[in-house]
């Protein structure tokens, strides 16, 4: 039952993509900015988790929570310093700034601690059990359940809390939301905080699952998570989850078929096909452009 195994690997990878993609999609939904630095927040989260496990001898869950909190703060700082002034700037200016912030975080981290990779410590026992003929490690079950819990939590925040309501309102129509007395700046900061916290969680999970982290690890998962967000329909939260899972499974299947060097290309081919044939994504609605 090789295929069940591959499917489970794909879903584990996909849930990491989905967690990162959620941050992209929420930020894009609210200020129409592709936050290129999001992949680097993921990297920073991974390193914070690493240091809290190795230096402070914490367990997986405390490390996860510390990393999420630190990333939330980091995301808000990035937003306040770099993106806030660009609310009314052109899209190209905002995009270039995001690229600049991304490079600054990557090379800032390299400058501080060097470019050498780190090996993530084992936090779970490597036990596994057989299911339908596939070997499933406890680790991947835990990772999957953490991702699912976080996504359910996100759905709860977005749909049941006041902040979530404000976020939906701002993303629907910023001006009208402002007139209704919603504090737009704080809502945008909250969006960044939640998205970055999810990226931080994804970073810790990625580290535990793949065991190797380095300062440039965020680039490729970041771009792929963006692909996942576009695939699901950018700005749509369930879309990001589905897009991430689909992308993870597709990549794993491509690797399993023996084309592991082409794995990265698969994501971009999907991206280009989606952009050309259905730019609004799987869950998106077509919007007509008005003059």
């Amino acid at each position: 039952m090789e295929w069940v195994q591959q499917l489970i690997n794909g879903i584990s990878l996909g849930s990491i993509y989905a967690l990162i993609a959620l941050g992209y999609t929420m930020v894009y939904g609210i200020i129409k900015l592709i936050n290129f630095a999001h992949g680097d927040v993921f990297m920073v989260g991974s390193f914070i988790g690493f240091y809290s496990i190795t230096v402070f001898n914490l367990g997986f869950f405390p490390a996860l929570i510390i990393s999420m909190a630190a990333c939330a703060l980091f995301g808000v700082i990035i937003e306040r310093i770099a993106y806030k002034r660009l609310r009314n700037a052109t899209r190209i200016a905002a995009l270039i700034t995001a690229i600049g912030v991304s490079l600054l975080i990557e090379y800032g981290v390299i400058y501080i601690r060097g470019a050498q990779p780190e090996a993530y410590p084992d936090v779970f026992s490597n036990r596994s059990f057989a299911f339908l003929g596939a070997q499933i490690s406890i680790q991947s079950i835990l990772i999957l359940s953490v991702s699912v819990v976080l996504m359910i939590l996100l759905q709860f925040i977005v749909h049941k809390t006041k902040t979530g309501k404000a976020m939906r309102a701002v993303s629907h129509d910023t001006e009208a939301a402002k007139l209704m007395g919603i504090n737009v700046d704080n809502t945008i900061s909250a969006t960044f905080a939640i998205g970055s916290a999810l990226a931080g969680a994804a970073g810790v999970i990625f580290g535990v699952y793949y065991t190797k982290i380095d300062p440039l690890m965020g680039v490729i998962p970041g771009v792929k998570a963006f692909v996942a967000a576009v695939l699901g329909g950018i700005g749509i939260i369930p879309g990001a989850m589905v897009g991430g899972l689909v992308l993870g499974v597709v990549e794993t299947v491509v690797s399993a078929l023996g084309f592991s060097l082409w794995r990265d290309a698969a994501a971009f081919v999907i991206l280009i096909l989606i952009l050309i044939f259905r730019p609004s994504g799987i869950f998106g609605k077509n919007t007509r452009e008005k003059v």
Partner: protein
Amino acid sequence: MKKSKQFWLFIIAAVLVYAVVQFFIANGTMNQFYSNTFIFIAINIILAVSLHLVIGITGQFSIGHAGFLAVGAYISAIVTMKLDLPFIVAIIVGGMVAALAGLIVGIPSLRLKGDYLAIATLGFAEIIRIVFLNIDYVGGAAGMQVSHLTTWTYAFVCLVITIIVIVNFTNSRHGIAAISVRENEIASDAMGINTTYYKVAAFAIGSFFAGVAGALYSHNFYIIQPSQFGFLKSFDILIFVVLGGLGSLSGAVLSAILLTVVSTYLQGYPETRMIIYSLVLILVMLYRPKGLMGTMEITDYFKLWRTPKGGDQHGK
């Protein structure tokens, strides 16, 4: 009449620059390191000017320029190393194939706008890189040996041709159509301009010169590897155009010269170099989103000195 005067002034200046540098290289005042720096500046200017045509003039935000650089570099290396043809043929073939790649990439993706186009071009560039990574004929990840054929003469002649072609394109009716696409695509569509045609044409011309730069690049470095043509290379080219001013050719040229010199001096400290690059990107976008020169050209400043009203030829 005035245009032709400007043209001849430019040619004379170019010949002078060429002669001075060539004189110093020939009599040995400038060693290998400096002559290489000059060649590298010329290559970077070609790249900056070719991307300027796509982003600055036509307003299509492409961040995958390194893909076309890679096509030019690999195709020209195949022409000289595997087919044993002369270098000049390699430059032309490299440019042509890159232009073809530009057409193939541009026709589907230029239907997209803004952010989506940026991501699509990034994706295409990455696909091009992965394709080269997987072809054993060109050495895969280990790279391909290329002999050192690029000289200052080749680099400078290519540079001058690039600038002349792009300036002439910009000042022709095609260039004005392209600028109208940049300013407002819907309005220029309504005025009867075939916007898709001009976008694809500008993209293909930009790709052609990126391919030419690729040919010079690969024959200047002894070895080419797919890892040289990643995201970072695209961002390197992007920063030339952004810093110089979106829509300013002389700005792109100046910032290419400036940043190449800076990065040559910081070669030993790649992290510092990237931190400076990224800070420049952020600060320029936050405090001067038009770039150093905006859409002005150097010649516009001369006109400003002469006539207090200012030049009337913006957006060249």
